């Protein structure tokens, strides 16, 4: 059962994430108008935002400790924040600043944080084997830490998905595989990519539990993740969790989204999981209207401070490009 405190924490996480993503969306456009130029502005390069997918990050990560390893994708912010990554150093990395997690070398798809055992990768599905390896290490070391691997529904058609699930199941490793099914891989809809409707059914191919969360509900995610995490910690092997979630924005910023209809976009906006969840908490008396506003305000302040930290931080020296190829 989910405590009120957990419900509130998830709300708080979701709000922080949403404010981070929406603020970044604005910042990203700085210097990119009138003509959009991907290389321009304070935050250049591709930018994959996760607004709409907060329930997955919030519901899963609330069960985790900083020593639990998390691997994420090209769309990593929501997970990184929910898992406790320092927002300032994260923002600074996204700005390419020397105070960033990777001193500006990684960028938004390459956030590595030893403090929260977090890593991500821009190559689809290829973060999954890393998660298996973390869990293998934990088993060898006799730790009850676990690994959580997040990936999109598009990734579930990559070979690495199959190999990772088989290995984790075979070796009985403490991995929770979390599929964020937002129905789209850039412009390719899931039904044009995946031969079956629900990736959770693929758990059968590995003899592990497969759980489907059909409605982008943080509490449902929290409950399913709780079982999976407990199972993993207890040394009873991996679980595959699939959450039907929503990508409210484009695949990346600047995506014209010609492949989605206006109708679809409106439906998405209407069923915004964060709004629904907040209303529900208020209706249930877990959260007051003012309490909610305070959460948003605090989140905005936190995000503003992080962005400001990033802005004010210095760039690395150009010659630093030559460092850190080898340890």
């Amino acid at each position, binding site marked *: 059962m989910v405590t009120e405190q957990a419900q509130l924490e998830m709300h708080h996480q979701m709000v922080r994430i949403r404010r981070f993503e929406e603020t970044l969306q604005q910042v990203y456009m700085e210097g990119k108008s009138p*003509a*959009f*130029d*991907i*290389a*321009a502005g304070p935050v*250049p*390069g*591709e930018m994959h935002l996760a607004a709409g997918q907060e329930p997955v990050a919030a519901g899963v990560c609330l069960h985790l400790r900083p020593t639990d390893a998390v691997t994420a994708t090209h769309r990593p912010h929501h997970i990184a924040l929910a898992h406790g990554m320092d927002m300032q150093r994260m923002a600074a990395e996204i700005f*390419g*600043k020397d105070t960033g997690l*990777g001193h*500006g*070398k*990684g*960028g*938004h*798809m*390459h956030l590595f944080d030893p403090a929260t055992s977090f890593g991500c*990768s*821009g*190559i*689809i*599905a*290829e973060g999954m084997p890393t998660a298996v390896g973390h869990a293998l290490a934990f088993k060898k070391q006799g730790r009850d830490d676990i690994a959580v691997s997040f990936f999109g529904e*598009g*990734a579930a*058609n*990559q*070979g*690495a998905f199959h190999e990772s699930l088989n290995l984790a199941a075979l070796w009985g490793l403490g991995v929770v595989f979390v599929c964020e099914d937002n129905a789209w*891989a*850039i*412009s*390719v809809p899931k039904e*044009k*990519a*995946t031969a079956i409707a629900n990736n959770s059914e693929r758990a059968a191919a590995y003899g592990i539990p497969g759980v489907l969360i059909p409605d982008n509900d943080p509490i449902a995610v929290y409950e399913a993740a709780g079982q999976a995490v407990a199972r993993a910690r207890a040394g009873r092997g991996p679980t595959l969790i699939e959450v039907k979630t929503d990508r409210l924005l484009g695949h990346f910023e*600047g995506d014209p989204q*010609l*492949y989605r209809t206006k109708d679809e976009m409106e439906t998405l906006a209407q069923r915004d999981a964060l709004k629904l969840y907040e209303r529900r908490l208020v209706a249930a008396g877990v959260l007051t209207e003012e309490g909610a506003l305070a959460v948003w305000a605090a989140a905005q302040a936190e995000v503003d401070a992080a962005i400001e930290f990033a802005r004010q931080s210095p*760039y*690395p*020296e*150009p*010659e*630093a*490009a*030559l460092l850190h*190829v080898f340890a």
Partner: protein
Amino acid sequence: MAVEMKRRLLTTSKAVAEGIAQEMERDPAVFVMGEDVGVYGGIFGATEGLLARFGPERIMDTPISETGFIGAATGAALSGMRPIAELMFIDFFGVCMDQIYNHMAKIHYESGGNVRVPVVITTAIGGGYSDGAQHSQTLYGTFAHLPGLKIVVPSTPYDAKGLMIAAIRDDNPVLYMFHKGVMGLGWMTPNPRATGEVPEEPYTVPIGKADIKRPGRDLTVVTVSLMVHRALDAAEELAAEGIEAEVLDLRSIVPLDREAIVESVRRTRRLLVVDEDYRSFGMTGEVITSVVEGAFDYLDAPPARLALPDVPIPYARPLEQYVLPSRERIVAAARDLVAGR
């Protein structure tokens, strides 16, 4: 403007798409598969408009299963089709390399010539816009080292269309690498050289023939792709100082037009190789060695190279700009070379 009215200007991406479309009309065996090649038109526009024209049976969006669909391209080619398969970024080659280099590239040889694999793999290369270590590489050196693939790297709209048609008609697997910075995309930093005259009718540019993009007598700059543009910019600056650089655009890495390289260096007696790929064990070393083999006695100075140092491509703008060859650095290297070691 009036005198120029007959010129038909296209961006490189539109030239590529036009080449594909014309071959698809000519030959029903040609089809396209890849991620986001349909409605999206290819992330870098190489298939823009093709879905509307040819329908989803011939312009096929695929799952993110590069081993699967690039391998399927080989099978389809063995059974009489002429697939074009898009690997969205060359940086992703590692998820499907076995299909490319151990199968597509080798089957013709292993069969003693009995079967053919006419596939074109289109793929985007190059950095300069802060896309980080997994989305900015060029990597033609990696592929050129391995036998059995032709490798085409156009720099202009004209070459892009002609090389695409040549690639589709070629009976061998061809890796067609377009630099994002030469495509003329609306969302990339504008590049005037990415738009140019392109004849409407189909034509081919031969694979394996380098092209002198600018003649010169004082040194030869051998390069490809976006770096051709940088080298031409540098050549203009150098010309103002009285240094005439010949800019040789390889256009294809395999076959490598060693004759054209050697011939040019025998004339200019100086060689600078400019490469956006990693410096070591790549194109620069091969071109220099080819010149050592073919024009050693003609050299007035040791050949020089300018390339990406052997580091992953950093994200932050000042770091990335530091590692990429630039007009300024080409100018400086050329000056040094001409001033004599």
